[in-house]
């Protein structure tokens, strides 16, 4: 093994995340040996015992590549995003949460006050007569305790720092990560800054093996339990709402391969600022009604347009949050 080349320094960090993105990095399986042969992991809280102060002690741009997963929802997330930006040559927004806000970004349908009220006052399992709420600072007799500040808005990574690349998915398909990693290792020409990488230049439907017809003629959408999937016809044509037409390929249509509709985690195509807007257009073309009452009935069957079309992308969408 030619070890003359200095190894890449790699960091993986999570903001407001579920842990799935970090696990997807572990999913490289035996490819991990290629990774380890070519890189030293210098920071990765889920797997290795490095502390924040170790990162703080690094010279600027010490890390070659940082995979930042998770959204930015607390002051700690923001602090670490800024710190890692400063210490990294290439900062990659890894996964849907860092890319467009992801599942934690759904909290932008509400606000901090309503969330706290629900969690600390109202929830069935809560007993909190003094209405204690978490605060960034509290004085106890042993001294002052601090917590990160919980923000009102959930942010995408690029709403707080400059991002070099975006690698979408919830979580990203591991093969795509390995391809990107190998491109960096071999010194291949990297795409222009700001690119979405590890994706295809086509929508999910283009890779989908299901039979599709030009005219969809859908009268209404159904809940999954109302339909017996024939296993071969486009899910939208069977009335199961599938985000495939508005979602960028890259995952291998893995949900539809598993007979579940695409939920849109790979985000919109290049140059499309709003995934939901595209899906609304796509649905309008698939429905067949012309009279207002037919249309009303059809649209009524789209139970939760905002939550469905922006499941992974509310903070990164044009309107960003509930007004």
């Amino acid at each position, binding site marked *: 093994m030619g070890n003359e080349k200095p190894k890449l320094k790699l960091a993986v960090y999570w903001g407001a995340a579920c842990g799935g993105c970090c696990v997807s990095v572990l999913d490289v399986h035996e490819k991990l040996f290629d990774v380890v042969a070519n890189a030293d992991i210098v920071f990765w809280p889920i797997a290795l015992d490095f502390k924040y102060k170790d990162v703080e002690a690094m010279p600027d741009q010490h890390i070659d590549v940082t995979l930042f997963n998770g959204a930015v929802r607390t*002051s700690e997330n*923001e602090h670490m995003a800024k710190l890692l930006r400063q210490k990294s040559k290439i900062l990659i927004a890894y996964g849907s949460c860092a890319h467009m806000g992801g599942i934690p970004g759904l909290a932008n*349908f509400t*606000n901090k006050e309503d969330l706290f009220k629900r969690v600390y006052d109202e929830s069935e399992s809560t007993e909190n007569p003094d209405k204690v709420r978490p605060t960034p600072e509290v004085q106890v007799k042993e001294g002052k305790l601090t917590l990160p*500040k919980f*923000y*009102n*808005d959930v*942010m995408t990574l690029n*709403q707080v720092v400059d991002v070099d690349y975006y690698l979408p998915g919830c979580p990203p398909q591991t093969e795509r990560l390995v391809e990107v990693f190998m491109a960096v290792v071999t010194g291949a020409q990297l795409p222009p800054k700001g690119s979405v990488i590890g994706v295809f230049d086509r929508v999910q439907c283009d890779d989908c093996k299901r039979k599709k017809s030009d005219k969809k003629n859908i009268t209404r959408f159904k809940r999954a339990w109302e339909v017996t999937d024939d296993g071969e016809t486009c899910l939208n044509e069977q009335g199961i709402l599938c985000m495939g037409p508005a979602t960028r390929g890259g995952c291998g249509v893995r949900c539809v391969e598993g007979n579940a509709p695409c939920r849109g985690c790979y985000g919109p195509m290049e140059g*499309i*600022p*709003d995934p*939901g*807007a*595209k899906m*609304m*257009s796509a*649905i*309008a*073309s698939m*429905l067949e*009604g*012309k009279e*207002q009452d037919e*249309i*009303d009935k*059809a*649209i009524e069957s*789209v139970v*939760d*347009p*905002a*939550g469905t*079309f922006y499941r992974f992308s509310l903070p990164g*969408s*044009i*309107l*960003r*949050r*509930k*007004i």
Partner: protein
Amino acid sequence: MQSTVNNNENWTPKIVAFFCNWCTYTASDLAGVSRLRYAPSTRVIRVMCSGRIDPEFVMEAFAKGADGILIGGCHPGDCHYAEGNYKCLRRFTLLQKYADQMGIDKERLRLEWISASEGKKLQEVVNDMTEQIRKLGPSKIKNVVETIER
């Protein structure tokens, strides 16, 4: 929710109007030629068909400070491209539901079929919508979109 009460009679809302070239846009021309007076609230954007209006245009306009959005197309059956206005109606109905979930007052988003000969209807619609939005007050959307709350 998003509106502050504002009874300022002097305030004129900004309404971004997407008008189909073949009908509503011509109607606004007619209204002008016929010297029909109506509120100076609209900023008209001419499109070739109401079916061309992407929901993205509407969101962008709100995000950039529109107080209201008016879409004008040909009456059902009269679209120059046969079905563009039906597509528009389906998109609009879905967009309305989304806008409601996002906390946007429903009066701020309106669709009307106005033919080339209906200059009078155009005048009435613009005046009526202007009045409704005046009651709601300026839109907060731009401010919310641009100001991240930490």
